[in-house]
């Protein structure tokens, strides 16, 4: 179902439940993977993903068609993700490098990933980036989004995103060639 049709269903109280079911099925994997790449751990990603869809459901009335549905959904997902990481750091009163160590530890010990040393090293390199830059990198590199799509989601200029991505690639490649 196209987003336009979906929106019509979501706006009517009679078809809203069905529309939301379709929306969840259509976007759940994309939302989950954006989050999973940021929080690393499956259980955390599962929790944040559910929270994202609860928020979408609660705020359906507030969605205005001045942005596209997928942009709105991705914006909620990326905000939830960044908030989750920020809260984690704040709740535990730990500096960022300790959160990073925890995430690296999860990469090393997660049962839900394939064994491949260079990919593991790439994941660790990505974790050295600040959260927002990491998000931009993931959206560009893994999801192969265009800069203007990322700009719509993050509310940032295309120029800034290009600079951020370029800088991220340089940092990652430097990490890959160390040690």
């Amino acid at each position, binding site marked *: 179902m196209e987003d336009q049709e979906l929106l019509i269903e979501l706006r009517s109280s009679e078809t809203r439940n069905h529309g939301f079911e379709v929306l969840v099925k259509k976007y759940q994997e994309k939302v989950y993977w954006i989050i999973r790449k940021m929080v690393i751990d499956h259980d955390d990603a599962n929790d944040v993903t559910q929270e994202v869809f609860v928020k979408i459901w609660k705020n359906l009335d507030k969605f205005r068609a001045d942005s596209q549905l997928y942009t709105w959904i991705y914006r909620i997902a990326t905000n939830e993700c960044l908030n989750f990481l920020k809260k984690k750091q704040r709740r535990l009163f730990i500096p960022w490098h300790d959160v990073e160590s925890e995430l690296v530890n999860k990469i090393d010990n*997660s049962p839900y990933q394939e064994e491949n040393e*260079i990919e593991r090293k790439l994941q660790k390199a990505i974790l050295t980036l600040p959260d927002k830059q990491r998000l931009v990198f993931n959206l560009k590199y893994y999801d192969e989004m265009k800069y203007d799509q990322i700009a719509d989601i993050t509310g940032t200029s295309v120029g800034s995103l290009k600079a951020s991505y370029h800088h991220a690639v340089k940092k990652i*490649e430097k990490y890959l060639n160390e040690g």
Partner: protein
Amino acid sequence: MKSDKKHRITLGDIPRRNFQKVPEGYFDTLPGLIASRIESDNKKSTSTPVFTIGLNWKTAAIAAALTLLIVFSGLFDSVNKSISPEEMLAQINVEDIIEYLDYTDLTTYEIIAELDIDENDADDFLENDIQLLNLEEFESLDEYELYQEYGIEEYIF
């Protein structure tokens, strides 16, 4: 002549694929998990009010903002005296405020908008908030200084 220069790894050398996995059948069960969560959320919101003393969100936002102001900024003196923060705060548990702040979507801007405080004080408060947030983004002082020099939105995001 054979080059002894070590091959430099680039992103192009690594397959661009997702190497993380999910438990089998996870995406079949996720819609059900979401539906249950929405249902329990609905039950919670109808049977258990978030604030047992019956504050609406605006009052709670003001109370939370006042707590922040008292603790962090010393701006308390400039707050309109017609609000009695002591009375208001005395009715709210600190845990309730912390829980509220954890769950709320309110930004500092929205909280400030609910307060009757001087514009300059609000700017000071927001500036402090922005600086705190920005510092978290940087790995080193050098990066932070570079960021400061070239503009807030242009460097990281």
